[in-house]
Structures are given as structure tokens and as C-alpha cells.
């Protein structure tokens, strides 16, 4: 399938998700279950995307584990997003020198 179709579908869906509520939806969602569900969705999605994929992200499980541990520790202490992201890569790189 052409990559153009994939990109168009991807961009179209992403835009509609943002546009429809921003432009048309003015009422509040009443269902408490649905509101709770939407509240947890971002965390659940990111978690499912990260684990176990992060361990295969550097091409070497050893360096990826080092990067993951560093990222979790820094994130635990509320380090800014960018610092966590770059420190994960830096520590995976340094680990790669030794492994």
C-alpha cells in the first residue's frame, strides 16, 4: 500500500480527534465511567507502548536496560521530560562502550 495513504489516514484521524471536541463539543461528559476511562487512557497507552518495546529500542537489550533504569530513576524524581529522554540515550550509549 502507498505510504501516502497511510500518512493521510494517520493525519486525518489525529486531526479529527483534536478538531471535533475543540470546535463543536461544548457539553460535559456525564458518564463517570467514561470520564475515568479517558483519564487513564494516556498513561495506559504510553505504558503499553513502552513495555516491553523499550528493551529492543537500541538493538542491544543490555544497553536498553541501562537506559531504562536511568530513565525510571530520573523520572521518579520529577526530572524534566527532555532531561530524562536524553539521559536515557546517553546512558545507553555509555553502556554500549562497555558491553
Amino acid at each position, binding site marked *: *500500500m502507498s*505510504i501516502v*495513504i*497511510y*500518512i493521510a*489516514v*494517520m*493525519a486525518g*484521524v*489525529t*486531526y479529527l*480527534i*483534536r*478538531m*471535533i471536541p*475543540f*470546535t463543536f*463539543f*461544548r457539553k460535559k*461528559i456525564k458518564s*463517570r*465511567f467514561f470520564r*475515568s*476511562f*479517558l*483519564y*487513564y487512557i*494516556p*498513561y*495506559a*497507552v*504510553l*505504558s*503499553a*507502548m*513502552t513495555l*516491553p518495546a*523499550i528493551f529492543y*529500542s*537500541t538493538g542491544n537489550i543490555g*544497553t*536498553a536496560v541501562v537506559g*531504562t533504569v536511568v*530513565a525510571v530513576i*530520573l*523520572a521518579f524524581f520529577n*526530572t*524534566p*521530560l*527532555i532531561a*530524562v*529522554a536524553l*539521559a*536515557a*540515550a*546517553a546512558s*545507553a*550509549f555509555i553502556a*554500549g*562502550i562497555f558491553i
Partner: protein
Amino acid sequence: MKSNFFRGVSHGIPICLGYLSVSFGFGIKAVQSGLSVAAASIISAVNLTSAGQAAGVDIIAAGGALIEMILVQLTINIRYSLMALSLSQKLDKGFTTPHRLAASYGITDEIFAVCSAQKERLTPSYMYGMIFVAFLGWVTGTTLGAAAGQLLPASVSSAMGIVLYGMFLAIIVPPSRKQKSVLIVVLAAAAVSILFRYVFTAVSGGFAVIISAVAASALGALLFPVRDEEAVE
């Protein structure tokens, strides 16, 4: 009008710098998955989202079905609906429908966070200013990562593959520390996802993410329903 735009630009500069480095990682990942530099840059320009793009590239690389692409983008990006809903409550009167159609393109986690922290009502120029610099950072970083990823030594570019995941961890770990409910949802989603990876391997990656996330969030909603003030953060 103009001053609002530049205020938006200045508030957006930290976002721009952050996006530069994260999208650099996305650019590398996209090229590693077999995409061209141009395709990676266009994806960043028309989507302006990290997790959705990363998952989208995986589906493209695997030659997945379009329905899979639609469902994955829906699941990963549905949070933007909540953010859009929340922001729509604090828009200035000047935010006419055409402005809403345009500015909604730029609702990201970080832009939402900065906009919702503003005390005054949001004007279109303010949001355009912020979206403009964020866009520059995101697309420039992607292009550089996609192009230079091939020039960098393999040891550097492979280490950069972890950048986006590092950012995801930085988003999910702090709230997991604060709220037991979020921690349980995060662990449940990871557990189901790991199960798909090693046990139910017939399910494709995109659907595995959807099923894991929906199951964990439904569990969270059943066990720990949120109060009103939490739901619109």
C-alpha cells in the same frame, strides 16, 4: 494581536527545544524503519504528536491494515479530545469557528499544559504563536534526525532509539508515584502488553497496544473512578 502572537512564541520556546531533541529520535526511528527523510518530515508536519507517530511508523513498516492505523491513532491520541474539550472552555470570544478549526491542529500534551496554565482567556494569536515554534522544533528535529541518523556512528544513532521511550517514562512515572490508581493502570497495561509480546504473538503490535490500554483503563475506571476535578486536568 501581534503581542499575543509573540507572547505565544516566547511561551513556546521551551516546548520547541524539547521537541527538537525528541523528534530527532523519531527521525532516526523512522529511517531505521525504512522510511525516507521526506516521509518522516511530512509525518511530523501533519501529525505533530509523538506516541501516535511512533506507533504509526511501526504500522507502516509492518505493512499493517488501514483499520489498524485508524484504531491505533484513535486509541493513542484520544487524550487530545479531553484536552481539546478542556481548552474549549477557556477560549476568548475572538475564537471563531475558522480559528478553532485551525488551532485544534496544534493541541499537544505540552501546548495543552502551557495553555491551561494561563490565567487569561486564550486568543487565536497566542495559540498560533506557540504552535508555530513548537511546529518548527518538531519538524526541524525530525528532518535532522532522519538525515543525520545515517551520518552518525551506529553506536550513537542506536542509543538515540530510546529517546522517545525515555520521554514516555518521564510522563507516566511521576503520576504513578503520586497516585496508586495510575500506578496500577500503568502496571496492568505493561503486563498485558508483555503477555502479547511473548505469549499471544499472533496479535499485531498496534492491536496489542490498543487492547492493553483499553483493558487497563477500563480496570482503572472500574476500581478507581475519578472525581470531577481530576478528569479535566
